[in-house]
């Protein structure tokens, strides 16, 4: 079976391996240069932007020279779906569209053994390739994480464990879609669409609710401009919501805030002074940075469970000979 699986899927594995290798090497080269901007290692500068002069200049150079790369990293959200769906879609669909399932399942290897070997091998390749890429990317982002924290969407979704779970989820969707649609390309399309929809709704709607967020409230400082938001929540926390509340702690709608702003303009006073005088407070709703791994584990579990259910449906269909 090992030889057969390799012979059937070597094209996909080689193409994906090549892509992961090329992007990985590019990231390693750029990442080494970016790391060199931090003589003591990027971790020592975590949260030191604006506080430590050496770190501040390092961060400025990082932004100038490698900021563009960080923006490009957004494209790597798709790495798990490309790997998972590319390997999962043809697993059953190609056999079904070419009629070769009738050849494969009438040899002396029972279909359940055939399916188990294929699923294990291709899911294994999916995890291995995504894992290698994620390891490089997580390392590459260390300077950026020291600057901006790793709880924002552009870090959390690319680092740690979750990309592996995303890839397994894409693999599961693509395999199941292939079993139902019996065609590789539509199965790949369905997996791609489902991946984007599920990933986005989980990240935007479910993830903030993995734990009860904390809230900080502090009075608007009398001095300074309105952009000076203060250090809490800190750079590494994940801020979900920010805004103003009145002296009693009631949150102000944006209309109410703009009315205050207009009133300050009419009165000709500094906005912050105006707000301070009325006892207006700033609040921040956030998840503290130390919840990073808890959230990673929760989201990983979520996607792995969904992937397992999808694979279960495939196994059930093949077992019941519904294909």
């Amino acid at each position, binding site marked *: *079976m090992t*030889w057969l699986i390799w*012979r059937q899927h070597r094209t996909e594995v080689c193409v994906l391996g090549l892509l992961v290798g090329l992007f990985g090497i590019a990231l390693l080269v750029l990442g080494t240069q970016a790391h060199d901007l931090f003589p003591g290692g990027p971790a020592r500068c975590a949260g030191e932007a604006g506080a430590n002069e050496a770190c501040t200049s390092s961060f400025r150079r990082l932004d100038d020279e490698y900021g563009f790369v960080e923006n490009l990293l957004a494209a790597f959200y798709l790495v798990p779906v490309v790997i998972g769906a590319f390997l999962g879609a043809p697993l059953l669909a190609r056999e079904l569209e*070419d*009629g070769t399932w009738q*050849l494969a399942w*009438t*040899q*002396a290897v*029972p279909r359940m053994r055939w399916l188990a070997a294929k699923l294990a091998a291709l899911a294994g390749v999916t995890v291995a390739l995504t894992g290698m890429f994620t390891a490089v990317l997580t390392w590459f982002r260390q300077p950026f994480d020291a600057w901006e924290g790793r709880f924002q969407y552009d870090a959390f979704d690319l680092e740690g464990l979750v990309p592996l779970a995303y890839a397994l989820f894409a693999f599961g969707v693509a395999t199941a879609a292939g079993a139902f649609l019996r065609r590789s390309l539509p199965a790949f399309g369905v997996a791609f669409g489902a991946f984007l929809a599920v990933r986005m709704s989980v990240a935007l709607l479910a993830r903030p609710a993995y734990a009860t967020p904390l809230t900080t409230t502090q009075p608007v400082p009398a001095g300074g401009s309105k952009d000076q938001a203060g250090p809490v929540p800190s750079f590494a926390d994940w801020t979900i919501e920010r805004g103003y509340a009145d002296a009693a702690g009631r949150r102000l709608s944006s209309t109410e805030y703009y009315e205050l702003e207009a009133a300050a303009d009419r009165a000709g006073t500094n906005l912050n002074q105006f707000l301070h005088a009325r006892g207006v407070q700033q609040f921040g709703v956030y998840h503290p940075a130390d919840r990073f791994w808890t959230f990673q584990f929760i989201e990983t579990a979520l996607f792995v469970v969904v992937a397992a259910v999808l694979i279960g449906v495939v196994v059930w269909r093949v077992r019941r000979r519904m294909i």
Partner: protein
Amino acid sequence: MTAIEFALRTDGVGKRYRKGWALRDCTLALPAGGVIALVGPNGAGKTTLLRLVVGLLAPSTGTVEVLGHDVTASTPQTLSRIGFLAQDHPLYKRFTVADLLRFGRACNLRFDQGLAERRLAKLGIPLDRKAGTLSGGQQAQVALALALAKRPDLLVLDEPVASLDPLARHEFLQVLMGAVAEGGVTVLFSSHVVHELERVCDHLIVLNQGRVTLTGDIDTLLTEHRLLVGPRTATELDRADAVVEAVHSDRHTTLLVRDGAIPAAPGWQAQPVSLEDLVLAYLRRPSEQGAAVTPEVTA
């Protein structure tokens, strides 16, 4: 071991898809050895029946027993005793012929690679060519060589020659019959072409609209059935259970009867019937008469 080794036994087998029943009440008992033809029009359920036989499908009702084993269990032992050639002889098109042989060796308990290589060499099919670049006839031959290299006890072929040109068809059947002559293998194949069957087959199953309408040893079937030609009449139809088909012309009535050898009534002439006419008569019967199936009890 039973006294009679059956290659295939089905009992009340039915298969329902979402759209409806593809096969109903299929009860067959086919002895080992020889060549069995499964005949029926397109959409009669032939492919469904063959897929049930090789365990690719599970029956909705009834049981399928191949070589004395329940085929739905799909053990490696049972699977290795059955060879299957699906319609349009699917192969991994990007595999070379040598890759396909390696696939056969990797996935089977007993795979006679030497046999397959000899067969392919005799046909002049190079091992280093990709399967997708071979002609249709050569692909069919490669698929057949793969199936035969399993040294199966039952070889099942679904419309094996339907997509081949006459020359390739002839070569294919020659190889197939050569393998049968070497002995030990029971062949079950489907076809919607009726002529030439008499030359090749020992046993016949006629399938129409998902039901078995006729099954039996071909020689026995031909002795049991006769054409009776007489003056145009309707009285003979009283014995409707024996009359398979009645055709009336201006002056004559021709009856196809299954009555053993009861002497014909005065004024009627008895004639033997050809296999093709026999099959066509059963295919033309409305399906509600399909109940007139005689279970096969050939020893």
